[in-house]
């Protein structure tokens, strides 16, 4: 009994800090419609800055709490700068590009933190006067946790007052509904957006700073937090503060009790709850139907078309070189990189298929890549299957997962659907990570070697063949009647339904196809590396796929190809050249986003078109 109470209190404490981060994210999303992946990075910065400030201020109440507030304000200022220097320039770009930009920020912040604070975990000072614990029903509970439990509701109250009782709050709520109209009434949205970013970031910073006495500060706080907070925000309903509060409570308590009841599947549990909530209430607990976003003047997406003949020849030429040149390359290294590239192209093309023609963003596409990889690897490990059958099985494993997960994901739309894909990917990852008996857990599946005939060179040709065949097949499908129907439901779901297109079915099939092709890539990956680890389906891999697609450009068929090649090439070179490859890659992404809001392929196309017209 006492134990339960203790767990409940623990849950409240983590709910409180979850709410702080989530409230910032939800407010920012409400007004700017930006899904800020960098919000977890701001939280991490809050913790690091608080560490530096508090340890440099005199000890005592003023030093600690002053340091926490200063850190929050500093993070707020960083968020405001981010908005002014970066996001402000791309509000008119497609939604996914804003996402890409915030990915770039995540990468940059990771390395900047590494540069400044180093790789080791930092242990912050305890809060003065709150080191002890109180006695509750004969159990000792840390005093600081109790204070933390109080801070959440206080902040919620203050935020509600701010939004209901001040003109600024009224403007923010109005802009959440229709920001263009707010502008037409004479309100400078820039200032409004920047101030919202300041507030949201400061809340993230505050949450991070308050963690100082609870846990060590480290470089993994950003992604760990952002996934949890996404869950909270989505479960609560995007843009809703009370929703975020309730969801934080729910998730915090599930965490606390999950450890007690199902210690083996705590990771799965949270995402399972999210999946259930989204299936029952597709917009989260308190979410409202989004206003038609026609309110924002944006340029119509370019129509997907066949490439000009010259570009086709160029592509064909590149393919010939890719087939013929490798035997003359010295060393295995080049072959390994080329194989990686072929796999990456197929992986990116499969994600592009649902994102571009399908119009569904997936934040968890690595799940299907990884399930394909694990499927092939486990067949070899447990059934001693040779390479070819194992490779053939990979797309079926991934496709099956696609059938199951897709059924739920494609019923939702927009960010909610993307979040659900993330949730399923995390579930798949947790299974790979925690089901040690079968998957080997963190130690992975080893010894997945190709058949003897598949030398490095032969395997490369195999990978290239699969990649080219897969990409062409996806292209063929995108330009078939099925592809037209897919794009029709993307562009206008209602009208598509009205002419007899079953949007759900079409999206579902597309989802399964994309999963299957990702599975092929995953199977190849397993044999190329000789092993599979849970990293094959973790969030960073999903992010990699997103980066490839977004870099290349969502609305061109050549986009994922170029994106995958550019990303893999750049990544490979950077990792070899510098420890700070994230910083460089992130900066490159930010520059590209600012310079080519249409993606690489879009930019090339535009340049090509304008040259031909001239």
């Amino acid at each position, binding site marked *: 009994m006492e134990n339960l109470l203790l767990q409940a209190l623990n849950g409240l404490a983590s709910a409180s800090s979850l709410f702080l981060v989530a409230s910032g994210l939800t407010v920012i999303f409400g007004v700017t419609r930006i899904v800020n992946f960098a919000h977890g990075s701001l939280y991490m910065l809050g913790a690091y800055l608080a560490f530096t400030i508090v340890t440099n201020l005199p000890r005592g109440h003023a030093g600690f709490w002053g340091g926490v507030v200063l850190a929050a304000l500093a993070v707020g200022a960083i968020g405001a700068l981010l908005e002014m220097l970066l996001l402000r320039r791309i509000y008119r770009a497609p939604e996914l590009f804003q996402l890409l930009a915030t990915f770039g920020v995540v990468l940059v912040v990771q390395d900047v933190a590494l540069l400044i604070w180093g790789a080791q975990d930092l242990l912050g000072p305890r809060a003065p006067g709150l080191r002890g614990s109180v006695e509750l029903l004969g159990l000792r509970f840390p005093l600081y946790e109790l204070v933390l439990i109080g801070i959440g509701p206080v902040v919620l109250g203050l935020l509600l007052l701010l939004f209901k009782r001040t003109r600024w709050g009224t403007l923010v*709520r109005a802009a959440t509904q229709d920001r263009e109209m707010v502008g037409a009434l*004479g309100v400078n949205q820039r200032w409004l957006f920047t101030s919202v970013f300041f507030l949201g970031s400061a809340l993230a910073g505050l949450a991070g700073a308050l963690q100082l006495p609870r846990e060590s500060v480290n470089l993994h706080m950003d992604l760990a937090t952002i996934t949890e907070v996404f869950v909270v925000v989505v479960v609560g309903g995007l843009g809703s503060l009370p929703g975020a509060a309730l969801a934080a409570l729910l998730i915090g308590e599930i965490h606390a009790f999950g450890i007690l009841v199902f210690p083996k599947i705590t990771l799965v549990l949270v995402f399972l709850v999210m999946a259930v909530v989204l299936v029952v209430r597709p917009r989260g607990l308190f979410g409202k139907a989004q206003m038609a976003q026609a309110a924002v003047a944006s340029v*119509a997406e370019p129509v997907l078309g066949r490439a000009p003949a010259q570009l086709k020849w160029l592509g064909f030429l590149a393919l010939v070189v890719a087939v013929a040149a490798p035997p003359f390359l010295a060393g295995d290294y080049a072959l390994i990189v080329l194989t990686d590239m072929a796999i990456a192209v197929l992986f990116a093309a499969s994600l592009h298929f649902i994102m571009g023609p399908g119009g569904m963003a997936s934040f968890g596409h690595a799940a299907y890549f990884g399930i394909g990889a694990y499927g092939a690897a486990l067949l070899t490990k447990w059934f001693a299957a040779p390479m070819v059958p194992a490779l053939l099985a990979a797309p079926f494993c991934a496709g099956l997962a696609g059938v199951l997960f897709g059924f739920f994901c494609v019923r939702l739309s927009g960010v909610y659907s993307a979040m659900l894909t993330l949730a399923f990917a995390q579930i798949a990852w947790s299974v790979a990570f925690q089901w040690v008996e079968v998957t080997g857990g963190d130690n992975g599946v080893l010894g997945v070697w190709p058949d003897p005939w598949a030398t490095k060179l032969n395997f490369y040709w195999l990978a290239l063949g699969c990649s080219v065949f897969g990409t062409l097949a996806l292209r063929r499908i995108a330009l078939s009647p099925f592809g037209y129907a897919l794009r029709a439901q993307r562009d206008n779901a209602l009208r598509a339904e009205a002419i007899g297109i079953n949007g759900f079915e079409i999206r579902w099939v597309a989802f399964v196809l994309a999963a299957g092709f990702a599975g092929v890539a995953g199977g190849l990956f397993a044999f190329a590396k000789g092993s599979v680890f849970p990293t094959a389906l973790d969030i960073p891999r999903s992010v990699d796929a997103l980066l490839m697609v977004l870099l290349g450009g969502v609305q061109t068929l050549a986009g994922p190809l170029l994106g995958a090649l550019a990303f893999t090439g750049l990544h490979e070179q950077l990792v070899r050249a510098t420890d700070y490859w994230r910083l460089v890659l992130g900066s490159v992404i930010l520059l590209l986003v600012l310079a080519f809001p249409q993606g690489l392929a879009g930019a090339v196309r535009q340049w090509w078109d304008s040259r031909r017209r001239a």
Partner: protein
Amino acid sequence: MLKVQGLSAHYGRAHILDDVGFEVPAGQVVVLLGRNGAGKSTTLKAVMGMVRPSAGQVLFEGRDIAGREAYQIARAGLGYVPEERRIFSELTVRENLSVGRRPPVPGLRPWDEARLYGLFPALGAMQDRPGGRMSGGEQQMLSIARTLMGNPRLLLLDEPSEGLAPVVVQRMAQAVRQLKAEGLSILLAEQNLYFAHAVADRAVIIEQGRIRWEGGMVELLNDESTYQQYLSL
């Protein structure tokens, strides 16, 4: 007051406005007439900076405001009432009005809530009602009232009579005439000729993004052929 010259605008590759030019003299009501899709709304939006003009000038009291952002244009003294009304449905009537509030302008009697409730008594009776729970006519009144809170000198009204019951249209016409009597200049986009006739001094006919006819309202009503050519179905 407002002088539009050579205004062009595109949506993507489609040419929507082509060399549009007309004038709104101070204190007058000018109506922009035309069929669906003729370019009326786009003209208002281009004047207001919500559609970026690709060429041309928009002179407001002699200053070119073309290409400025909507909020700057609003601050210069233009008020815009959109066709879809675009009420903030989760905000109450009072809150909607407060979003529109801007400082008073010298030489103009400032608008406040009490004075607006005088103009639209229906609104006064529902100050705490969320915008989403109002009828179309009430939302139209709120939309106009919200824009008036910014103390504009020129009002851009996009089809205020659309979808309203005849009785409400009459009341709307009364309100517009009252605004004119207070010295406000008004540029109106309309399809409803009766409403236009009830309030307008001058008419400008637009078709396929070009100005086809310009003259007095009375003159238009006596010009059967122009009417037949551009406005009748």
